[in-house]
């Protein structure tokens, strides 16, 4: 008898071992899923930030080029005036005599000079349009990424969980919840979700997010360079932008147009007035900024039939019936120690329970932004309120960037963090530290 009882204890230890193994496997799967999702989130942020930086450099480059070309408009104007004076001088006869004929001989050279300067001047407008349309396309690409990327997070996190040994999450979660609730309340819940019709097996989720997986980035206008064509910002009344955009640049262009167009028909037939097609000189641009919060993922293993079918023995578990395989192989349906009563067949059986595990992750680093002090501050507030990691990005942003004007570091990286429940409070799930 003692040996028999010990044998049963041995078999129960097998069950306990299986539960522990399932728990570790599910935790591995949840951790892997959480870090995979965080990885793809970080990749998405870095891609968007690279486009931000490209946008920023593109604006700066075009700014320099446009300024040079608009300055050339003044030179072109002077060259045209000189050419016209040479022509007048040469035609008057008196002037030609007084100048010794030099004004006549200078006409071809001055004409060529004026033509080349006007050709440079005339590029200012198409480049302004190029700048505006390219910025628009970059923003469209960023919008597409911000909307499409969360799907990559979910799909690849699910695959990571699957390859780590998790069971389909749509079976695990209700299975676990039903088992837990049935122990508290006298109700029975369905142990699996109804199967979704026409769901490809490749899309079967093996891990589910409990929190938002959004990149949490959005297009925002800023107050400073390079968001606006102003270094001074609102504190300086945008004085530099007003002078450059509303006075100097249009003045240069009007002068260049007035003189060059008189001599050379060079402007495009439409949109030769900044603002009608190419937008205003300079820009009041938008960039993407944002920082996602933490994510919490769940993965698990479904319940299993007890090893060796001990839970089917009636004196260990009176409310159970023998499984079909026991009946078949051992012919024990008539043996009294097994309870085959149909009336209690639906009662809960002893089994290896389903287990679930939670894992949280978040992206750490600068996030997505550009150089605007007010927006840097906003980003820092966002990251602090949404993030749960110990190394928040705010200090990084402030220490690295500060008042400097330069490209933002592309440094988003994925991290596993302590488990946080969807309401933001710390969870108690097992967390394996690396």
């Amino acid at each position: 008898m003692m040996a028999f009882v010990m044998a049963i204890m041995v078999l129960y230890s097998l069950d306990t071992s299986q539960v522990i193994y399932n728990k570790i496997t599910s935790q591995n799967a949840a951790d892997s899923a959480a870090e995979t999702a965080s990885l793809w989130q970080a990749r998405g942020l870095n891609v968007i930030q690279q486009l931000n930086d490209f946008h920023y450099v593109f604006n700066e480059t075009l700014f320099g080029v446009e300024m040079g070309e608009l300055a050339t408009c003044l030179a072109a104007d002077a060259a045209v005036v000189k050419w016209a004076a040479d022509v007048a001088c040469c035609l008057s006869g008196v002037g030609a005599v007084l100048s010794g004929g030099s004004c006549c001989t200078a006409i071809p050279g001055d004409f060529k000079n004026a033509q080349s300067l006007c050709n440079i001047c005339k590029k200012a407008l198409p480049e302004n349009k190029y700048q505006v349309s390219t910025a628009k396309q970059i923003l469209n690409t960023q919008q597409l990424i911000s909307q499409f990327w969360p799907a990559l997070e979910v799909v690849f996190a699910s695959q990571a969980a699957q390859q780590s040994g998790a069971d389909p999450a749509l079976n695990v979660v209700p299975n676990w919840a039903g088992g837990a609730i049935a122990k508290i309340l006298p109700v029975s819940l369905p142990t699996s979700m109804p199967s979704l019709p026409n769901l490809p097996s490749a899309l079967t989720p093996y891990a589910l997010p409990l929190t938002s997986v959004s990149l949490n980035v959005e297009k925002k206008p800023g107050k400073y360079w390079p968001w606006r064509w102003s270094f001074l910002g609102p504190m300086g009344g945008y004085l530099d932008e007003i002078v450059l955009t509303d006075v100097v640049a249009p003045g240069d262009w009007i002068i260049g147009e007035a003189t060059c167009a008189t001599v050379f028909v060079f402007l495009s037939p439409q949109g030769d007035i900044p603002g009608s097609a190419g937008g205003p000189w300079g820009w009041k641009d938008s960039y993407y900024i944002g920082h996602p919060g933490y994510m919490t993922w769940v993965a698990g293993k479904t319940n299993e039939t007890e090893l060796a079918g001990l839970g089917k023995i009636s004196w260990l578990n009176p409310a159970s019936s023998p499984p079909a395989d026991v009946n078949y192989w051992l012919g024990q349906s008539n043996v009294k120690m097994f309870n085959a009563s149909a009336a209690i067949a639906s009662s809960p059986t002893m089994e290896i329970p389903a287990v679930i595990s939670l894992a949280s992750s978040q992206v750490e680093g600068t996030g997505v932004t550009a150089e605007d002090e007010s927006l840097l501050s906003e980003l820092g507030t966002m990251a602090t309120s949404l993030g749960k990691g110990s190394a928040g990005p705010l200090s990084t942003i402030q220490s690295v960037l500060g008042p400097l004007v330069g490209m933002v570091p592309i440094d988003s990286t994925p991290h596993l963090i302590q488990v946080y429940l969807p309401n933001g409070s710390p969870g108690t799930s097992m967390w394996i530290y690396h």
Partner: protein
Amino acid sequence: MKLPVIANRSKGRRHRTLAGAILAEGAIGLCLLVFVWILFSYISYMSNNRIRANMSARYSAWLSGNGVSSTTSASTDQYAFLGDDQKMVTFKSTKNTLGFLGVSVPTMIVPNPYIYSNSVTFGTNSADINSDSPFPFNMLALNKLPFMRVDLMMTNFTMVSAHCAWPDVSDTYNTYLPPAISAVAALELAWEGGIFTQ
């Protein structure tokens, strides 16, 4: 009164028979207990091995995903298996490509869509067993009963394995744009650049 010789002999024989039965039952009971104890030891040992293998698989997969070479990842088994146990660990790392709708993601579109699936196998098989092996169950792996098929031998019954997968977290796209996005951006710039030819 002196009993007959025959009567004395029969009484002595009855006593000896009862003692033998008690001894036999005791021996059987003891054997059962020993058997159960051995079984319990085996299950505890194998359960422990399975859990150790699981933890080791996770750690090695995590290292692989963080850019540590598979050779180095294999040497990290020292954290889960101590001493001579390390000699019985087999490590395998597979670099899988993530897929979408059953189709692998081409690296030309999304760089490094990799996930490392690492497996750790621990234990001995019949080829590893030698005479000074410290494990008492190893001998069973070599047992072959008469007329027993070879495929029914318990060759790997002391082996456990576990696996875990981890993504390639060492590449966060922080130094380049994915080719698909770069190509679209280049086409867009070229298209917009056509303005200059007007």
